[in-house]
């Protein structure tokens, strides 16, 4: 009997603590959105951006990034060490494919340990750790998929990616350094998922690169994509020189200017070209295009 007040105190405190934890957790859970499933691309924006060797439209490259990009020769992909390296994590937003997202769930309480955005054969999977673990040491290994943590802000999932290997922002050579980080947000609105990715790279970008894309919830699951990449001989032997272009020697630098009358500053990703003032600047000198004759769009059904 003498210990009763102490017991009451302990029980009250523990109950209060548990209730507060529950309230905090349930409030958070109520604010979350379900992201698990297959999200289909619609590809009604951002078409034809990496089909040309020099098309850095919309990229805020700095001088070093531009120099590096213009030195890139796609024949590097024939080298055995580059064949399976894949693209940087930002390609999950920038590429033409959909997203398959699943979660790893804690067995007893059902909390989310992580989300995973499935791989394609040319992009590593992205695991988003939701369990509060810290990012590794700055000296830890960098991987193709990087290291990503996530948290909820309201019903938006906010993720932060570090420890990415050096790679490319786009498939045609604009570089991304291993110092780059990526912050993403996932907003779900009904059956639409809009993803914002902001790549910050102190080495190659004049300002953060912003890319957004919307996906639609699919009723049919996305099938596993392709076999694992397997290297093979494609004409380049180990020890041979790396295909590249010397400064001022890239033969494709004027291709889009010729084809679509686009100013060179925009084609090579100068940061001023991303803003409306630039549109006014080029208005007087822009030469209108002749009517489109080929690759004008998908022919509608009759």
């Amino acid at each position: 009997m003498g210990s009763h007040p102490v017991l009451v105190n302990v029980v009250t405190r523990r109950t209060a603590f548990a209730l507060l934890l529950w309230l905090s957790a349930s409030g958070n859970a109520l604010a979350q959105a379900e992201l698990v499933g297959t999200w289909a691309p619609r590809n009604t924006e951002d078409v034809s951006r990496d089909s040309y060797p020099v098309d850095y439209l919309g990229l805020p490259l700095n001088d070093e990034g531009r120099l590096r990009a213009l030195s890139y020769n796609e024949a590097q992909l024939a080298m055995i060490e580059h064949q399976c390296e894949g693209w940087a994590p930002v390609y999950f937003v920038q590429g033409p494919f959909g997203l398959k997202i699943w979660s790893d769930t804690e067995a007893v309480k059902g909390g989310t340990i992580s989300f995973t955005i499935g791989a394609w054969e040319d992009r590593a999977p992205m695991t988003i750790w939701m369990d509060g673990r810290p990012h590794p040491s700055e000296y830890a290994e960098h991987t193709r998929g990087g290291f990503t943590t996530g948290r909820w802000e309201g019903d938006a999932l906010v993720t932060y990616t570090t420890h990415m290997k050096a790679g490319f922002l786009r498939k045609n050579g604009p570089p991304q350094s291993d110092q780059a980080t990526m912050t993403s947000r996932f907003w779900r609105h009904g059956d639409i998922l809009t993803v914002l990715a902001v790549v910050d790279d102190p080495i190659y970008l004049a300002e953060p690169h912003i890319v957004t894309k919307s996906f639609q919830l699919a009723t049919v699951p996305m099938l596993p994509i392709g076999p694992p990449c397997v290297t093979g001989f494609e004409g380049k032997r180990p020890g041979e020189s790396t295909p590249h272009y010397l400064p001022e020697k890239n033969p494709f630098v004027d291709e889009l200017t010729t084809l679509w009358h686009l100013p060179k500053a925009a084609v090579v990703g100068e940061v001023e070209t991303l803003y409306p003032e630039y549109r006014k600047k080029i208005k007087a000198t822009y030469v209108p295009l002749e009517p489109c004759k080929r690759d004008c769009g998908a022919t509608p059904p009759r």
Partner: protein
Amino acid sequence: MRASHAFLIGALVSAVALAAPAPAGAQGRGGPPPTAKASAPIDLTGYWVSVVNEDWRYRMVTPAKGDYRGVPITLEALTIVNAWDPKADDAAGTQCKSYGAAAIMRVPGRLHITWQDDNTLRVDTDAGVQSRLFTFAAAPAPAGAATWQGTSAARWERPGRGNPAVRAGSLNVVTTNMRAGYLRKNGVPYSESAKVTEYFDLSPMPSNGQLIVVTTVVDDPKYLLQQFIVSSQFRKEADGSKWDPTPCSSTW
């Protein structure tokens, strides 16, 4: 010890009160529902500039006549695409066809977002000098004559099943009653039957500043085979010093 219990119980009661969703429209005891402005979960007001990282050659310059890549148009729309005649639009006084509600967020320029009144959010654009009114109202406004910017019904989307303690959310806007216009400057059309659904989301930038991301979904039974979905981003500016009203143009 009693004081300790009282403190814990008090803390619990406060926590429950904070976490429990408030009944819709409730404020105080029997008071009027909070206005859209007062209950805004995010602050979209201010000056914002387009960051054209996407679809550069369709937005920053006028694409070639007949180029509709990426837009899922119908055969009927293709006829209009191939007949695009900016001089005819000039002659008809319809130079603003590519500045309508279905396209305006994609036009490079600046937004000035303000509260016109407690339940109407106003979005002005310097490109094309357009004004959009997002009306938060229980009943839709009576539809008058169709306009470039149409009639927009707005509502806040709140996470946590409307829990006002969670200060986050999105703006959802549905626009109808528009004049027929162009999704792109070069005459890729949307019809007067189109409906535009938009979501405005806010994000801080990693270093500093803020972004609005606008997801635009265009439904058009006449000219689109499926929804046309684009997302556009705007960076916040400190003031309106770069605001540059520019009239509609049919060619640029």
